[in-house]
Protein backbone atom coordinates (compact mmCIF):
# COMPACT_ATOMS: atom_id res chain seq x y z
CA UNK A 1 0.00 0.00 0.00
CA UNK A 2 1.28 3.44 -0.90
CA UNK A 3 2.06 5.79 1.96
CA UNK A 4 -0.27 8.44 0.60
CA UNK A 5 -3.13 5.99 0.14
CA UNK A 6 -2.60 4.93 3.72
CA UNK A 7 -2.53 8.41 5.26
CA UNK A 8 -5.39 9.80 3.16
CA UNK A 9 -7.55 6.83 4.12
CA UNK A 10 -6.59 7.25 7.77
CA UNK A 11 -7.67 10.88 7.61
CA UNK A 12 -10.92 9.97 5.84
CA UNK A 13 -11.63 7.54 8.67
CA UNK A 14 -10.84 10.22 11.24
CA UNK A 15 -13.10 12.67 9.38
CA UNK A 16 -15.88 10.10 9.39
CA UNK A 17 -15.60 9.76 13.16
CA UNK A 18 -15.14 13.49 13.79
CA UNK A 19 -18.15 14.40 11.66
CA UNK A 20 -20.27 11.65 13.25
CA UNK A 21 -19.43 12.82 16.73
CA UNK A 22 -19.22 16.57 16.16
CA UNK A 23 -22.37 17.30 14.19
CA UNK A 24 -25.19 15.86 16.26
CA UNK A 25 -26.17 19.54 16.38
CA UNK A 26 -27.35 18.92 12.85
CA UNK A 27 -29.80 16.21 13.81
CA UNK A 28 -32.71 17.03 11.54
CA UNK A 29 -35.87 16.16 13.41
CA UNK A 30 -36.51 12.83 14.95
CA UNK A 31 -34.71 10.71 12.40
CA UNK A 32 -31.26 10.21 13.84
CA UNK A 33 -28.90 9.61 11.00
CA UNK A 34 -25.23 9.77 10.45
CA UNK A 35 -24.18 12.66 8.24
CA UNK A 36 -20.86 10.89 7.80
CA UNK A 37 -22.57 8.08 5.89
CA UNK A 38 -22.46 10.39 2.87
CA UNK A 39 -18.72 9.76 2.72
CA UNK A 40 -19.68 6.42 1.21
CA UNK A 41 -20.04 8.34 -2.05
CA UNK A 42 -16.27 8.81 -2.13
CA UNK A 43 -16.00 5.27 -3.46
CA UNK A 44 -17.32 6.65 -6.77
CA UNK A 45 -14.14 8.69 -7.22
CA UNK A 46 -11.58 6.05 -6.39
CA UNK A 47 -12.00 2.48 -5.20
CA UNK A 48 -9.12 2.89 -2.79
CA UNK A 49 -11.30 5.01 -0.48
CA UNK A 50 -12.71 1.64 0.55
CA UNK A 51 -10.30 1.22 3.48
CA UNK A 52 -10.86 4.68 4.89
CA UNK A 53 -14.63 4.34 4.86
CA UNK A 54 -14.55 0.92 6.50
CA UNK A 55 -12.04 2.07 9.12
CA UNK A 56 -14.23 5.10 9.86
CA UNK A 57 -17.26 2.90 10.45
CA UNK A 58 -15.15 0.60 12.58
CA UNK A 59 -13.83 3.32 14.88
CA UNK A 60 -17.18 5.07 15.22
CA UNK A 61 -18.80 1.81 16.23
CA UNK A 62 -16.03 1.20 18.71
CA UNK A 63 -17.66 4.05 20.64
CA UNK A 64 -21.22 2.82 20.25
CA UNK A 65 -23.25 1.51 23.18
CA UNK A 66 -23.88 -1.80 21.45
CA UNK A 67 -20.15 -2.20 21.01
CA UNK A 68 -18.99 -5.32 19.26
CA UNK A 69 -22.43 -5.98 17.83
CA UNK A 70 -22.37 -2.73 15.91
CA UNK A 71 -18.76 -3.34 15.10
CA UNK A 72 -19.39 -6.65 13.39
CA UNK A 73 -22.65 -5.79 11.67
CA UNK A 74 -21.78 -2.18 10.84
CA UNK A 75 -18.48 -3.16 9.27
CA UNK A 76 -20.13 -6.07 7.45
CA UNK A 77 -22.74 -3.66 6.11
CA UNK A 78 -20.10 -1.28 4.76
CA UNK A 79 -17.86 -3.97 3.33
CA UNK A 80 -20.69 -5.79 1.57
CA UNK A 81 -22.30 -2.61 0.25
CA UNK A 82 -19.02 -1.18 -1.00
CA UNK A 83 -18.26 -4.52 -2.64
CA UNK A 84 -21.59 -4.56 -4.47
CA UNK A 85 -21.17 -0.91 -5.48
CA UNK A 86 -17.72 -1.64 -6.90
CA UNK A 87 -19.21 -4.42 -9.02
CA UNK A 88 -21.90 -2.17 -10.49
CA UNK A 89 -20.39 1.29 -10.97
CA UNK A 90 -17.67 0.51 -13.55
CA UNK A 91 -20.55 -0.11 -15.97
CA UNK A 92 -21.97 3.38 -15.47
CA UNK A 93 -20.68 6.63 -16.96
CA UNK A 94 -22.31 9.52 -15.17
CA UNK A 95 -21.06 10.44 -11.72
CA UNK A 96 -24.59 11.17 -10.54
CA UNK A 97 -25.82 7.76 -11.67
CA UNK A 98 -22.98 6.09 -9.82
CA UNK A 99 -23.88 7.98 -6.67
CA UNK A 100 -27.55 7.07 -6.97
CA UNK A 101 -26.56 3.42 -7.29
CA UNK A 102 -24.39 3.79 -4.18
CA UNK A 103 -27.28 5.33 -2.26
CA UNK A 104 -29.68 2.57 -3.30
CA UNK A 105 -27.24 -0.25 -2.55
CA UNK A 106 -26.42 1.12 0.90
CA UNK A 107 -30.12 1.52 1.63
CA UNK A 108 -31.07 -2.01 0.59
CA UNK A 109 -28.22 -3.61 2.51
CA UNK A 110 -29.39 -2.00 5.76
CA UNK A 111 -31.22 -5.31 6.22
CA UNK A 112 -27.92 -6.33 7.83
CA UNK A 113 -28.31 -3.62 10.48
CA UNK A 114 -32.00 -4.46 10.80
CA UNK A 115 -31.07 -8.09 11.40
CA UNK A 116 -28.64 -7.03 14.12
CA UNK A 117 -31.38 -5.05 15.85
CA UNK A 118 -33.72 -8.00 15.51
CA UNK A 119 -31.12 -10.21 17.18
CA UNK A 120 -30.52 -7.84 20.07
CA UNK A 121 -33.92 -6.32 20.69
CA UNK A 122 -36.08 -8.91 18.93
CA UNK A 123 -37.79 -6.10 17.01
CA UNK A 124 -40.02 -6.87 14.01
CA UNK A 125 -37.67 -7.26 11.05
CA UNK A 126 -39.46 -5.44 8.20
CA UNK A 127 -40.39 -2.42 10.28
CA UNK A 128 -36.81 -2.07 11.48
CA UNK A 129 -35.48 -2.47 7.96
CA UNK A 130 -37.86 0.25 6.79
CA UNK A 131 -36.85 2.80 9.45
CA UNK A 132 -33.12 2.12 9.28
CA UNK A 133 -33.23 2.07 5.47
CA UNK A 134 -35.16 5.33 5.29
CA UNK A 135 -32.60 7.10 7.45
CA UNK A 136 -29.76 5.81 5.32
CA UNK A 137 -31.48 6.69 2.03
CA UNK A 138 -32.13 10.29 3.12
CA UNK A 139 -28.51 10.88 4.16
CA UNK A 140 -27.16 9.24 1.02
CA UNK A 141 -29.43 11.26 -1.29
CA UNK A 142 -28.61 14.52 0.47
CA UNK A 143 -25.00 13.50 0.22
CA UNK A 144 -25.03 13.41 -3.58
CA UNK A 145 -25.03 17.20 -4.22
CA UNK A 146 -22.75 17.80 -1.22
CA UNK A 147 -20.09 15.32 -2.24
CA UNK A 148 -20.38 16.53 -5.85
CA UNK A 149 -19.76 20.09 -4.67
CA UNK A 150 -16.75 18.76 -2.80
CA UNK A 151 -15.55 16.94 -5.91
CA UNK A 152 -15.62 20.22 -7.84
CA UNK A 153 -13.14 21.87 -5.46
CA UNK A 154 -10.91 18.90 -4.74
CA UNK A 155 -9.54 16.38 -7.13
CA UNK A 156 -10.86 13.43 -5.18
CA UNK A 157 -9.90 10.84 -7.79
CA UNK A 158 -6.17 11.53 -7.80
CA UNK A 159 -5.63 12.65 -4.21
CA UNK A 160 -4.60 9.15 -3.28
CA UNK A 161 -1.68 9.00 -5.70
Amino acid at each position, binding site marked *: *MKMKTLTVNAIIAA*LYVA*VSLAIPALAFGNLQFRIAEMFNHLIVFNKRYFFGIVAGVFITN*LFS*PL*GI*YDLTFGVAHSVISLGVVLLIIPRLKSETHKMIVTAVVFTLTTFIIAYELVLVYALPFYLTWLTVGAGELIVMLIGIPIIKALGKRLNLATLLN
Partner: protein
Amino acid sequence: MLEKMIFGRYIPGDSIVHRIDARAKLVFVFLFIAIVFLANNWITYGLLIAFTLTIVAVSGIRFYFIVSGLKPVLFLLVFTFLLHTFFTKEGTVLLDLGFTEIYTGGVIQGIFIAIRFFVLVVMTTILTLTTTPISITDALELLLNPLKKIKLPVHELALMMSISLRFIPTLMDETDKIMKAQMARGSDMTTGPFKERMKAVVPLLIPLFVSAFKRAEDLATAMEVRGYKGGEGRTRYRQLDWNLRDTVAILLLVVFAVGLFLLRS
Protein backbone atom coordinates in the same frame (compact mmCIF):
# COMPACT_ATOMS: atom_id res chain seq x y z
CA MET B 1 -15.74 19.48 22.30
CA LEU B 2 -14.15 17.10 24.73
CA GLU B 3 -17.33 16.33 26.62
CA LYS B 4 -18.78 14.94 23.41
CA MET B 5 -16.09 12.29 23.40
CA ILE B 6 -17.85 10.63 26.32
CA PHE B 7 -18.11 7.50 24.21
CA GLY B 8 -14.77 5.87 23.65
CA ARG B 9 -14.08 7.23 27.08
CA TYR B 10 -11.29 5.22 28.53
CA ILE B 11 -11.01 5.53 32.29
CA PRO B 12 -7.50 4.78 33.52
CA GLY B 13 -7.32 2.34 36.37
CA ASP B 14 -5.37 -0.52 37.82
CA SER B 15 -8.04 -3.15 38.35
CA ILE B 16 -7.63 -6.72 37.18
CA VAL B 17 -10.04 -5.93 34.32
CA HIS B 18 -7.78 -3.09 33.19
CA ARG B 19 -4.70 -5.29 33.33
CA ILE B 20 -6.11 -8.20 31.36
CA ASP B 21 -4.61 -8.38 27.88
CA ALA B 22 -6.65 -6.51 25.28
CA ARG B 23 -6.75 -9.63 23.11
CA ALA B 24 -8.23 -11.65 25.95
CA LYS B 25 -10.81 -8.95 26.58
CA LEU B 26 -11.85 -8.87 22.93
CA VAL B 27 -12.17 -12.65 22.75
CA PHE B 28 -14.02 -12.60 26.06
CA VAL B 29 -16.60 -10.06 24.87
CA PHE B 30 -17.07 -11.85 21.55
CA LEU B 31 -17.72 -15.15 23.33
CA PHE B 32 -19.93 -13.45 25.88
CA ILE B 33 -22.18 -12.06 23.16
CA ALA B 34 -22.79 -15.57 21.88
CA ILE B 35 -23.23 -16.98 25.38
CA VAL B 36 -25.93 -14.46 26.28
CA PHE B 37 -28.26 -16.23 23.90
CA LEU B 38 -28.03 -19.45 25.93
CA ALA B 39 -30.14 -17.97 28.72
CA ASN B 40 -33.85 -18.73 28.50
CA ASN B 41 -35.26 -18.94 32.03
CA TRP B 42 -35.18 -17.08 35.34
CA ILE B 43 -32.14 -18.89 36.73
CA THR B 44 -29.98 -18.38 33.66
CA TYR B 45 -30.96 -14.73 33.23
CA GLY B 46 -30.34 -14.22 36.95
CA LEU B 47 -26.88 -15.73 36.56
CA LEU B 48 -26.16 -13.43 33.63
CA ILE B 49 -26.95 -10.38 35.75
CA ALA B 50 -24.88 -11.69 38.65
CA PHE B 51 -21.93 -12.44 36.35
CA THR B 52 -22.08 -9.00 34.74
CA LEU B 53 -22.40 -7.15 38.04
CA THR B 54 -19.45 -9.10 39.45
CA ILE B 55 -17.32 -7.93 36.55
CA VAL B 56 -18.52 -4.35 37.07
CA ALA B 57 -17.52 -4.61 40.74
CA VAL B 58 -14.13 -6.10 39.93
CA SER B 59 -13.41 -3.44 37.29
CA GLY B 60 -13.65 -0.75 39.95
CA ILE B 61 -15.56 1.55 37.63
CA ARG B 62 -18.20 3.67 39.24
CA PHE B 63 -21.70 2.52 38.39
CA TYR B 64 -22.52 6.05 37.26
CA PHE B 65 -20.38 5.64 34.14
CA ILE B 66 -22.06 2.37 33.26
CA VAL B 67 -25.48 3.97 33.57
CA SER B 68 -24.44 6.90 31.42
CA GLY B 69 -23.55 4.34 28.75
CA LEU B 70 -27.12 3.07 28.88
CA LYS B 71 -28.76 6.47 28.54
CA PRO B 72 -28.61 6.80 24.73
CA VAL B 73 -30.29 3.43 24.29
CA LEU B 74 -32.82 3.74 27.08
CA PHE B 75 -35.62 4.67 24.69
CA LEU B 76 -35.02 1.60 22.57
CA LEU B 77 -34.92 -0.54 25.70
CA VAL B 78 -38.30 0.71 26.92
CA PHE B 79 -39.77 0.49 23.43
CA THR B 80 -38.71 -3.15 23.05
CA PHE B 81 -40.01 -4.01 26.48
CA LEU B 82 -43.43 -2.53 25.69
CA LEU B 83 -43.51 -4.17 22.28
CA HIS B 84 -43.02 -7.59 23.80
CA THR B 85 -45.38 -6.93 26.64
CA PHE B 86 -48.20 -6.01 24.30
CA PHE B 87 -47.66 -8.41 21.45
CA THR B 88 -46.67 -11.70 23.02
CA LYS B 89 -49.87 -13.61 23.64
CA GLU B 90 -48.76 -16.44 25.90
CA GLY B 91 -49.60 -17.56 29.39
CA THR B 92 -52.56 -16.21 31.33
CA VAL B 93 -54.19 -12.81 31.07
CA LEU B 94 -52.63 -10.46 33.56
CA LEU B 95 -54.46 -7.26 32.79
CA ASP B 96 -57.45 -6.50 30.60
CA LEU B 97 -57.24 -3.02 29.14
CA GLY B 98 -60.36 -3.40 27.04
CA PHE B 99 -58.76 -2.85 23.63
CA THR B 100 -55.98 -5.33 24.36
CA GLU B 101 -54.89 -7.76 27.03
CA ILE B 102 -51.51 -8.13 28.65
CA TYR B 103 -50.37 -11.69 29.15
CA THR B 104 -47.89 -12.97 31.72
CA GLY B 105 -45.82 -14.49 28.90
CA GLY B 106 -45.47 -11.09 27.31
CA VAL B 107 -44.24 -9.40 30.47
CA ILE B 108 -41.74 -12.19 31.13
CA GLN B 109 -40.51 -12.06 27.53
CA GLY B 110 -40.13 -8.28 27.81
CA ILE B 111 -38.12 -8.58 31.00
CA PHE B 112 -35.86 -11.25 29.50
CA ILE B 113 -35.07 -9.17 26.41
CA ALA B 114 -34.42 -6.14 28.61
CA ILE B 115 -31.98 -8.16 30.75
CA ARG B 116 -30.20 -9.53 27.70
CA PHE B 117 -29.85 -6.04 26.34
CA PHE B 118 -28.67 -4.64 29.65
CA VAL B 119 -25.88 -7.20 30.09
CA LEU B 120 -24.74 -6.76 26.49
CA VAL B 121 -24.45 -3.01 26.77
CA VAL B 122 -22.79 -3.14 30.18
CA MET B 123 -20.25 -5.71 29.04
CA THR B 124 -19.22 -3.82 25.92
CA THR B 125 -19.18 -0.55 27.86
CA ILE B 126 -16.75 -2.12 30.31
CA LEU B 127 -14.55 -3.18 27.42
CA THR B 128 -14.28 0.37 26.10
CA LEU B 129 -14.01 1.89 29.58
CA THR B 130 -11.07 -0.29 30.57
CA THR B 131 -9.21 -0.57 27.25
CA THR B 132 -7.72 2.28 25.24
CA PRO B 133 -8.85 2.39 21.60
CA ILE B 134 -5.22 2.09 20.58
CA SER B 135 -4.75 -1.20 22.42
CA ILE B 136 -7.99 -2.51 20.95
CA THR B 137 -6.49 -1.75 17.53
CA ASP B 138 -3.24 -3.48 18.46
CA ALA B 139 -5.11 -6.49 19.78
CA LEU B 140 -7.15 -6.73 16.61
CA GLU B 141 -4.03 -6.56 14.49
CA LEU B 142 -2.51 -9.47 16.38
CA LEU B 143 -5.74 -11.47 16.36
CA LEU B 144 -6.18 -10.92 12.62
CA ASN B 145 -2.57 -11.77 11.81
CA PRO B 146 -3.48 -15.18 10.33
CA LEU B 147 -5.45 -13.33 7.64
CA LYS B 148 -2.17 -12.10 6.18
CA LYS B 149 -2.08 -15.47 4.46
CA ILE B 150 -5.01 -14.43 2.28
CA LYS B 151 -3.23 -11.16 1.41
CA LEU B 152 -5.24 -8.91 3.73
CA PRO B 153 -2.96 -5.96 4.58
CA VAL B 154 -3.48 -6.37 8.33
CA HIS B 155 -0.51 -4.28 9.41
CA GLU B 156 -1.36 -1.38 7.11
CA LEU B 157 -4.97 -1.42 8.23
CA ALA B 158 -3.93 -1.33 11.88
CA LEU B 159 -1.51 1.52 11.20
CA MET B 160 -4.26 3.36 9.37
CA MET B 161 -6.49 2.89 12.39
CA SER B 162 -3.83 4.20 14.78
CA ILE B 163 -3.22 7.29 12.64
CA SER B 164 -6.95 7.83 12.50
CA LEU B 165 -7.35 7.61 16.26
CA ARG B 166 -4.59 10.14 16.69
CA PHE B 167 -6.26 12.61 14.34
CA ILE B 168 -9.84 12.33 15.59
CA PRO B 169 -9.49 14.95 18.36
CA THR B 170 -7.56 17.26 16.01
CA LEU B 171 -10.20 17.03 13.31
CA MET B 172 -13.02 17.43 15.83
CA ASP B 173 -11.46 20.66 17.00
CA GLU B 174 -11.07 21.71 13.41
CA THR B 175 -14.73 20.92 12.65
CA ASP B 176 -15.74 22.97 15.64
CA LYS B 177 -13.51 25.86 14.61
CA ILE B 178 -14.79 25.91 11.01
CA MET B 179 -18.39 25.68 12.19
CA LYS B 180 -17.87 28.70 14.42
CA ALA B 181 -15.98 30.58 11.71
CA GLN B 182 -18.84 30.04 9.25
CA MET B 183 -21.41 30.98 11.87
CA ALA B 184 -19.53 34.23 12.44
CA ARG B 185 -20.00 34.85 8.72
CA GLY B 186 -23.73 34.36 9.06
CA SER B 187 -24.02 30.68 8.20
CA ASP B 188 -26.88 29.07 10.07
CA MET B 189 -26.83 25.32 10.54
CA THR B 190 -29.37 24.94 13.30
CA THR B 191 -32.44 26.86 12.19
CA GLY B 192 -34.21 27.72 8.96
CA PRO B 193 -35.63 25.48 6.27
CA PHE B 194 -34.15 22.02 5.77
CA LYS B 195 -32.71 22.86 2.36
CA GLU B 196 -30.87 25.90 3.69
CA ARG B 197 -29.37 23.87 6.52
CA MET B 198 -28.16 21.25 4.09
CA LYS B 199 -26.57 23.95 1.95
CA ALA B 200 -24.76 25.21 5.03
CA VAL B 201 -22.99 21.84 5.29
CA VAL B 202 -21.05 22.45 2.07
CA PRO B 203 -19.01 25.46 3.32
CA LEU B 204 -18.26 23.38 6.40
CA LEU B 205 -17.10 20.23 4.63
CA ILE B 206 -14.95 21.84 1.97
CA PRO B 207 -12.48 23.66 4.23
CA LEU B 208 -12.51 20.64 6.52
CA PHE B 209 -11.56 18.30 3.68
CA VAL B 210 -8.98 20.67 2.25
CA SER B 211 -7.15 21.03 5.55
CA ALA B 212 -7.51 17.33 6.39
CA PHE B 213 -6.06 16.28 3.06
CA LYS B 214 -3.18 18.65 3.56
CA ARG B 215 -2.41 16.94 6.85
CA ALA B 216 -2.54 13.54 5.17
CA GLU B 217 -0.16 14.74 2.48
CA ASP B 218 2.33 16.16 5.01
CA LEU B 219 2.20 12.98 7.00
CA ALA B 220 2.78 10.79 3.94
CA THR B 221 5.80 12.90 2.95
CA ALA B 222 7.19 12.80 6.47
CA MET B 223 6.87 9.03 6.62
CA GLU B 224 8.37 8.57 3.17
CA VAL B 225 11.45 10.71 3.81
CA ARG B 226 12.08 8.77 7.00
CA GLY B 227 11.86 5.56 5.01
CA TYR B 228 8.97 4.07 6.94
CA LYS B 229 8.42 0.41 6.23
CA GLY B 230 5.92 -1.61 8.19
CA GLY B 231 5.61 -5.32 8.80
CA GLU B 232 8.62 -7.65 8.91
CA GLY B 233 11.30 -6.86 11.46
CA ARG B 234 9.55 -3.86 12.92
CA THR B 235 9.48 -3.67 16.71
CA ARG B 236 6.57 -2.34 18.70
CA TYR B 237 6.38 0.56 21.09
CA ARG B 238 3.41 -0.84 22.96
CA GLN B 239 3.78 -4.51 23.85
CA LEU B 240 0.88 -6.78 24.64
CA ASP B 241 1.64 -9.81 26.72
CA TRP B 242 -0.57 -12.77 27.41
CA ASN B 243 -0.40 -13.96 31.01
CA LEU B 244 -1.90 -16.74 33.05
CA ARG B 245 -4.72 -14.45 34.22
CA ASP B 246 -5.82 -13.96 30.61
CA THR B 247 -6.15 -17.69 30.06
CA VAL B 248 -7.96 -17.99 33.40
CA ALA B 249 -10.43 -15.25 32.40
CA ILE B 250 -11.31 -17.07 29.19
CA LEU B 251 -11.59 -20.40 31.04
CA LEU B 252 -13.93 -18.85 33.63
CA LEU B 253 -16.18 -17.69 30.83
CA VAL B 254 -16.21 -21.18 29.32
CA VAL B 255 -17.17 -22.67 32.69
CA PHE B 256 -19.92 -20.06 32.98
CA ALA B 257 -21.19 -20.98 29.50
CA VAL B 258 -21.29 -24.68 30.41
CA GLY B 259 -23.21 -23.78 33.57
CA LEU B 260 -25.77 -21.79 31.58
CA PHE B 261 -26.10 -24.62 29.10
CA LEU B 262 -26.87 -27.11 31.86
CA LEU B 263 -29.37 -24.84 33.62
CA ARG B 264 -31.31 -23.68 30.58
CA SER B 265 -34.69 -25.22 29.98
